[in-house]
């Protein structure tokens, strides 16, 4: 089982390049919605998910991407997939 904090740190590093200029990496907390709060474009969500797949060596299915709404949701998906 991967450590939750490690996953969170890795995830924030993945998200960082896709944040709009007026949102700082410090603003990325677990409750934040990727699209509605962090203002990440939906086209970039795909890139983030592909980066997550590479970083954690997991496969994310089309139906799972719809569940990755907040930072917390995304951490949970990674923890679930890496535990499997």
């Amino acid at each position, binding site marked *: 089982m991967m450590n939750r904090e490690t996953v969170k740190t890795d995830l924030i590093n993945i998200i960082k390049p896709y944040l709009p200029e007026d949102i700082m990496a410090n603003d990325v907390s677990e409750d934040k919605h990727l699209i509605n709060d962090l203002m990440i*474009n*939906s*086209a970039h*969500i*795909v890139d983030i*998910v*592909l980066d997550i797949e590479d970083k954690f060596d997991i496969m994310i299915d*089309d139906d799972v*991407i719809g569940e990755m709404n907040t930072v917390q949701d995304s951490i949970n998906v990674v923890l679930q997939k890496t535990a499997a």
Partner: protein
Amino acid sequence: MSDYKNILSLLPYKRPFLFVDEITSLSEEGAIGAYTIRKDEFFLEGHFPGNPVVPGVILTEIMCQIGLVTLAMHLMNLNEDSKVLPAFTSANVDFLSKVLPEDKLIVESKKVYFRFGKLKCTVTCKKTDGTVVAKGELAGMVVKSEA
């Protein structure tokens, strides 16, 4: 061959913004097609007066329509009833050589990925003598059409 013709008729573009003459190869992995610059293209009148050169932004569009959109339509099995339109999401293109009226351009794309409805390709645009005029990475998705 009928398959490619069908793709052409399904493209949502019309003159003067249709930049595909033919598709010569279309597979899960990429597309190849061609477009010849007409002498009377609308953009040549202003770019530049008396000195017509095809703008990079139009080369990008030609690469997108042939390399990205036809491939996306093929991969997603789009048809007349699909009610979707292509949306360009990113382009990172180098322009390497000048393109003039009546030049024939051959565009070839190779799929980088097609995941979660987003298609990313490397796309190369050459003249018939093999000169590479532009190359880069393009990506797009489809969105529901309003009509």
